[in-house]
């Protein structure tokens, strides 16, 4: 039997049968229905309203958006930079603005221990709790501490600094292992203007041989001042009332980066002085 014949036979066979039910069957069923309670839904009224108002597609879309938002939020949270993979710097004593005490030696990935003496330009004690990343009150509130610093020289690498969510920039310098093994120290002063003048190291600076400082005037116009070097060794970023300086030291042994945020011209001057000491420390190591 060929396929079409079989199909015709099968169709005729399956379709062959009674088409009408004996009305008494329905009557018997309805008699039973009369004494049979309907199953109630636990949320019947709400669901019925939703059904009657044809809200299912709308609610489905809303639920989808909510789910996507939640998933996206979780994903973004997970994108927060984690702790550095490098060696953890040894804990140090707290540094506090307005305090000219030098920090202890901080051990980072750098093979050269770095000693920082941060400038004293604070006008008063600042609660260290306010100096946590993300809640630094005197820095632009709406500017997240997620810095993307691009070297002005085309040949230099793009440097992106991402904060660790719980990283503290002041107060415990030794516990600031930024991703990328950047050790960061932050000093700030409220209400001061960004740097406006070119800066350079003294001619006798130990940095002179390897690093040349200079402000990028184009960057300043957008509220950021980038200091770059011909070799891309040093970068600085100024934003709002504070300045973030990133310095890469070419000491021949490692490539440490130091981040300092300051706001005042005097702070900048002090910082430069401090850098001399840093380099001196490095060279003396």
């Amino acid at each position, binding site marked *: *039997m060929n396929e079409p014949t*079989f199909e015709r*036979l*099968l*169709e005729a*066979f*399956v*379709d*062959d*049968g*009674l*088409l*009408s*039910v*004996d*009305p008494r*069957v*329905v009557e*018997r*069923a*309805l008699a*039973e*229905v*009369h004494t*049979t*309670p*309907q*199953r*109630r*839904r636990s949320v*019947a009224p709400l*669901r*019925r309203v939703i*059904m*009657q108002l044809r809200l*299912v597609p709308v609610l489905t879309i809303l639920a989808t958006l909510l789910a996507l938002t939640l998933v996206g939020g979780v994903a973004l949270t997970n994108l927060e930079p984690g702790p550095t993979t490098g060696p953890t710097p040894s804990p140090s004593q707290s540094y506090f603005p307005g305090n000219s005490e030098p920090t202890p030696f901080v051990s980072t990935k750098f093979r050269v221990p770095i000693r920082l003496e941060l400038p004293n330009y604070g006008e008063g004690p600042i609660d260290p709790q306010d100096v946590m990343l993300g809640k630094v009150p005197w820095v632009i509130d709406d500017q997240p501490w997620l810095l993307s610093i691009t070297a002005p020289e085309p040949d230099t690498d793009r440097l992106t600094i991402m904060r660790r969510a719980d990283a503290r920039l002041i107060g415990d310098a030794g516990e600031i292992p930024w991703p990328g093994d950047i050790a960061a120290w932050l000093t700030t002063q409220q209400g001061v203007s960004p740097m406006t003048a070119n800066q350079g190291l003294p001619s006798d600076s130990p940095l002179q041989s390897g690093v040349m400082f200079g402000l990028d005037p184009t960057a300043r116009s957008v509220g950021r001042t980038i200091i770059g070097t011909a070799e891309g060794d040093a970068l600085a970023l100024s934003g709002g009332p504070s300045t973030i300086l990133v310095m890469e030291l070419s000491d021949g042994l490692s490539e440490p980066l130091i981040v300092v945020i300051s706001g005042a011209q005097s702070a900048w001057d002090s910082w430069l002085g401090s850098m001399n000491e840093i380099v001196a420390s490095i060279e003396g190591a």
Partner: protein
Amino acid sequence: MDSNLVLQAQNGDEHAFAELAYAMGSRLFAVAHRILRDVDLAEEATQQTIVDIWRELPTLRQAERFESWAFRMIVNACYRETRRARRLKARVHLLADREPERDPARRVADRDELERAFRRLPAEQRAVLVLQYHLGLSMDGIADHLRISPGTVRSRIHHAKRALRAAIEADARSVGQRQRA
């Protein structure tokens, strides 16, 4: 099917439900009769399905899907009737199907063989054939009605047809042998 009628019945309106029952009764019965191949069993399945529909109607989320939902319920009732009939058959030792008639017309013989083979099919396979050939549903439509995957539908139809065809061809061979003898 009138969705308003369904909504009224969902809210407990027995008059509205009676209208639904009379409108759907014969269609449900027709499906049941084709699956079960037995009037009594089909009537039993239809009656029980109407009661089940009444009881479960408030759980139906989309009134416009009432028909599909009702067909699924009659198919499920047929499954239950099949199992019940099988148990009954085992207990009372019903007589085996009658021997094939020596009918010179092949079509009649084929139909008889189809009837026997069809009864031997699992109810799930019978149901998909009925929905396909009697209700004219597509594979996807059957899958939607029965809430099974289209792949399962295809598989059931394939196996059902193969079994039916094999039964017809086996019968044809035996008739040929008898005629030669």
